[in-house]
């Protein structure tokens, strides 16, 4: 359809321009990878080349893993993101169903509350949430990293929109088959709304895996740090100017999401930009 919109001779120009901007975009990644396989001597030499004369990758990566508990950071990231997502779906899906399919007084009021909560930037709430975490005695635990995100207004909004497109007849049929309302949510609605659930899951996991602000406030122990906080602490305390291991550590932190993204591009683009509604 689009070949018609633009003239043919542009094709070469198009590739040239996109390869150029693409190369610019990739420079920080390339630089990070390059430093991570260079020996210290070559990094600080005047004539630097992207590919080292002496491949030093194995030394840098083993040093990074030995010096910083990188695998621990990743495990923390997995634990925190999984717990947040599981709780968000467990709390949001039933509420989304009630808002989409049930009639009850104050339904519009509840939905208005969801929309108002959607307006609030989470960083603004950090001070009272910190105090709440302190009063509950859960600061500096996994629970501190998880509790502010138990309910996701965006998740409720997204899943409700999808539930509304499922015909009421499906719900009536399930009721006549003797299913309870809770069973309708988990056995009928959620499986049917899987695309919306997956999109929300990617939005949630990407956001919390990459987030630095709240973890910085909520935990102090290195053994609890998620990847972004962990690598920042590693940079501040240990690596200093030891660029090889530091870049190796950065590469290890960035890699999982990049691989997941390249493997399921369309889902990731949809999931993370669908969040733009927020």
């Amino acid at each position, binding site marked *: 359809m689009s070949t018609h919109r633009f003239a043919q001779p542009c094709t070469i120009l198009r590739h040239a321009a996109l390869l150029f901007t693409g190369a610019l975009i990739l420079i920080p990644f390339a630089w990070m990878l390059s430093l991570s396989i260079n020996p210290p001597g070559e990094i600080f030499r005047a004539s630097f080349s992207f590919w080292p004369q002496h491949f030093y990758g194995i030394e840098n990566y083993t040093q990074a893993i030995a010096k910083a508990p990188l695998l621990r950071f990743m495990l923390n990231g997995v634990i925190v993101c999984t717990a947040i997502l599981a709780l968000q779906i467990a709390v949001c899906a039933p509420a989304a169903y009630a808002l989409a399919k049930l009639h009850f007084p104050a339904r519009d009021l509840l939905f208005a509350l969801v929309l108002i909560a959607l307006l609030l930037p989470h960083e603004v709430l950090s001070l009272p949430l910190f105090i709440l975490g302190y009063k509950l005695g859960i600061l500096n635990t996994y629970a501190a990293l998880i509790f502010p995100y138990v*309910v996701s207004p965006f998740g409720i909004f997204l899943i409700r929109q999808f539930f509304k497109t499922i015909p009421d007849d499906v719900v009536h049929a399930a009721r006549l088959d003797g299913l309870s309302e809770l069973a309708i949510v988990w056995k009928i609605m959620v499986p049917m709304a899987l695309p919306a659930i997956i999109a929300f899951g990617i939005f949630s996991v990407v956001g919390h895996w990459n987030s630095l602000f709240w973890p910085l406030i909520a935990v102090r122990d290195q053994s609890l740090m998620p990847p972004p906080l962990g690598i920042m602490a590693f940079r501040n305390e240990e690596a200093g100017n030891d660029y090889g291991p530091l870049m190796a550590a950065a590469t290890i932190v960035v890699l999982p999401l990049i691989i997941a993204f390249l493997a399921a591009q369309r889902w990731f683009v949809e999931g993370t930009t669908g969040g733009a509604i927020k």
Partner: protein
Amino acid sequence: MGSVMSIATKRFRANHRPVQRDAHALSTSDLRRHRLSEIGAAWLLAGPTLFFLIVLFFLPVLGVFVIALTDWQFGASTLSFVGLANFEEVFSDEGFRISLVNTVLYVAIVVPGTILLGLGIALLIESGKSFRAFYRAIHFLPYMATLTAMAIAWEALLHPTIGLVNQTLAAIGLPTANWLRDESRVLPVLGVIGIWQNLGFAMVLFLAGLKSIPQDLYDAADIDGADLWVDRLWTVTLPMLGPVFMFVFIVVALKAFETFDTVQVLTQGGPGHASEMLLFTLYRESFQYLRTGYGAAVAVVFLFILVTLTLVQARVMDRKVHYQ
């Protein structure tokens, strides 16, 4: 999935028509009981959400306002209301004024840069058929990558002696700089990193907008003599992208206002206050200096700016979304 629904629906219609007819014969008390059980079920299902919304969103927002009006400090057992004293302190504070101005300048760099590059790249990608997914993936990559780690990579890239930027500039005979320690350069440099991170996001939204422009309009423009792609760009593409444009503008502005990671990792607001931005000020005052009331007042100002932007966005979306 459509077929799953229609099968379920058909089966329902086939099996349950008699039951449905019986429903008309239900007594009013049965109906009322049914209504009550639906209300009960609804509150059971939505109850946890209501509880957590109140505890994790609405009480904290209220708390920020209350703290901002008191002299309460972390750990103190007493507090007294001091009216707007915290806000007076915030607005008379040179540091906060610089932080606010820096944030606005940063947004003024990031938003136009992100939109122009995002739109340009989206137009280039849409102008041909080959390698679309490939180009989209490359340009979207920074948006996915953990910014804290990539900030460390940028730091190495901008390193005064071994960084690629200065090495390249020196090689072609241009002056070099200490990019992150130079008061006049640090904010634009952070802006470049912000553009680098967000342009893929803008690109994806523009790509979606471009796909939704009907081919008929291009055909009509053809007939009207819009032969050059520039003509088609000005008469069809850009006007039709209007709503997307506005939407991207606000979403990117929101993201830019919420910039924290690069400041925290790369500059700590320095040199001097040259790269201090609102969210970093909020974090430092509240959690490092423990100036609780001051921090809460900054949070209220921050909230005010972001909510205003989001409400403008909601209005734009309302105008754009005319179904439902």
